[in-house]
């Protein structure tokens, strides 16, 4: 037993020495595996990071969140939107009044504008909302106050700044109480929101200005209908119930006959998360397939070099056989060489993958997660690739005739 272990150790030693004798060639052989494994690890890490980032932002939408858009969903599932919104502020009031499963309702309008504050200016999006907005989005005011119900009713020219806007227009930090001009209309800044970070599309959610929706409609956009209604259900278990109630109220208000298509549609936080996860998953699978092809090509590279190596070292094989190596010894030696190349390549690939991941983390600001199982998986695949593609050349070497091999020039 001890002898056979020692002998196996000796054979592996032979393989290791052969690799060390040809460092450059060994490295080039490994390159395919290095890139393949690196790809797998980076792709999985970036995919996980993106998923996590999406989860974070979806959670940051607020609790029990429901979005209500104008436009019908046809039976084929396509969303039709004619450009004319069918939702009004009165719809929002009705939902709040008539749906017991709904806690908060916020009619929302959107527009973009160039903002001027003193000598500085900044282009951003303006969201016209109601006082429920901070409650729905779980988004608190950092400095100053949110505007009041009275401000909404009187279409007061007040606004609350997102953190990014406040930083750019008021680098000194004295935003609250100042006046900014939006499309030449002066607005008084009453508060600055706390920082919320990027959303799932990578947009900065803090690059925005919040104002009463009445003011935005009358003074800025001139719209009479609203773009969307943001709703918070009264509890996590009431999201479905709330959607049913909202649908009933709106169909009645919009006089949609039974069986007719609704002229609005709703999406809950959960549904948004699912859609995002699906598209993320598709992207991740695509990248994984590319990485898999790369690993396969890397394996063929190993086989190619091992075949060349067997031919090149025919004489060496002959010498080894003459002094007593069995076919099995030669097979093991070459197989071990191939597997070692694959595994060392795999290790380098892990390092490459981790490096690429951290570069992406810095560049994209995603929380990149390198998981141990992605390392184990790609490592295992590399070893299997080594055995699979190393076997044929190794067997070819082990079947050489020692007399011919010794005579080979």
């Amino acid at each position, binding site marked *: 037993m001890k002898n056979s272990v020692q002998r196996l150790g000796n054979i592996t030693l032979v393989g290791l020495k052969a690799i060390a004798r040809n460092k450059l060639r060994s490295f080039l052989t490994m390159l395919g595996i290095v890139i393949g494994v690196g790809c797998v690890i980076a792709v999985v890490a970036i995919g996980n990071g993106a998923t996590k980032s999406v989860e974070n932002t979806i959670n940051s939408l607020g609790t029990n969140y429901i979005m209500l858009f104008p436009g019908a969903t046809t039976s084929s599932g396509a969303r039709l939107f004619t450009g004319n919104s069918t939702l009004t502020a009165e719809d929002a009031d009705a939902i709040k009044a008539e749906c017991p499963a709904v806690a908060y309702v916020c009619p929302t309008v959107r527009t973009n504008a160039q903002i001027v504050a003193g000598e500085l200016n900044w282009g951003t999006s303006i969201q016209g909302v109601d006082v429920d907005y901070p409650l729905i989005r779980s988004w608190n005011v950092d400095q100053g106050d949110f505007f009041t119900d009275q401000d909404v009713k009187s279409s007061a020219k007040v606004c609350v700044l997102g953190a990014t806007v406040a930083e750019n227009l008021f680098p000194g930090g004295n935003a609250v109480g100042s006046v900014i001009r939006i499309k030449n209309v002066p607005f008084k800044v009453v508060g600055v929101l706390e920082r919320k970070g990027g959303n799932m599309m990578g947009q900065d959610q803090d690059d925005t200005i919040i104002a009463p929706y009445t003011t935005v409609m009358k003074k800025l956009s001139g719209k009479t209908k609203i773009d969307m209604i943001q709703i918070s259900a009264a509890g996590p278990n009431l999201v479905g119930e709330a959607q049913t109630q909202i649908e009933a109220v709106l169909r009645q208000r919009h006089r949609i006959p039974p069986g007719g298509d609704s002229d609005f549609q709703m999406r809950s936080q959960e549904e948004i998360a699912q859609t995002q996860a699906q598209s993320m998953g598709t992207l991740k699978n695509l990248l994984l397939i590319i990485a898999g092809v790369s690993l396969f090509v890397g394996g063929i590279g190993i086989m190619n070099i091992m075949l060349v190596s067997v031919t090149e070292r025919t004489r060496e094989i002959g010498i080894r056989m003459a002094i*007593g190596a*069995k076919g099995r010894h030669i097979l093991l030696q070459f197989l071990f060489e191939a597997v070692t190349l694959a595994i060392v390549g795999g290790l380098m690939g892990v390092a490459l993958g981790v490096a690429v991941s951290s570069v992406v983390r810095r560049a994209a600001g995603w929380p990149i997660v390198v998981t141990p199982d992605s390392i184990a998986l790609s490592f295992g695949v590399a070893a299997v690739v080594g055995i699979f593609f190393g076997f044929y050349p190794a067997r070819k070497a082990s079947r050489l005739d020692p007399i011919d091999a010794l005579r080979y020039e």
Partner: protein
Amino acid sequence: MPSQVIAIQELVKVYQMGEVEVRALDGVDLLVDTGEFIAVMGPSGSGKSTLMNILGCLDRPTSGSYILDGVDVSTLNRDERAVIRNAKIGFVFQSFNLLARTSALENVELPLLYGEFGWTGGERHGAARKSLERVGLKGREDHYPSQLSGGQQQRVAIARALVTNPAILLADEPTGNLDSRTSEEIMGIFQQLNEDGKTVVLITHEPDIAQHAKRIVHVRDGRIQKDERIDQKKVRVSGIAPPVQAKIS
């Protein structure tokens, strides 16, 4: 009573070259006692190389028996022959056949890696060092073949052949790539090893190299044509170079 290390009877080797049968060996009988120094001579095409391949257990005879150190090796399969080669035969080749980019010590250790007995690293180093010392290469253990002269490379090859303490040393034209002075040195080593009790089988086509042996077997057309004893005392006394024996008619 000296025991026989090689006992060959009625050895026949037939190669099938397409339609034609070539009888490379056509009934060879040869007995070699332990401690002999025998040279096998013959022109190319005589069957000398075929005999060497079979003696070295690299090939199998078509018929006949070959008993090496008490083991009938004529019917062994590939792997069994590999074991016999490792344990009982030490090869020395014309072109040295050392592994490039591998130190002298590691080259000598090579057979021990494949042995049936699992040698540890320390045991291997020890045996290889001793073997190198025996051929006068102490201090050259870490040199690569490219850093050694032809004669030194052949000494490393002899050390490699000796390291498993084989029953026979089988040298195939060991001086074919060396100048005459170095050839003398190498033959001197073989003679010394033979005097220490090692059985040496030398394959050559050069008569003056064959003169270093105690017995010369002439092979022609696949048969042993002549088997003669050389009195080494006479050869040594007679002068610098041993006289070239009369050509065999």
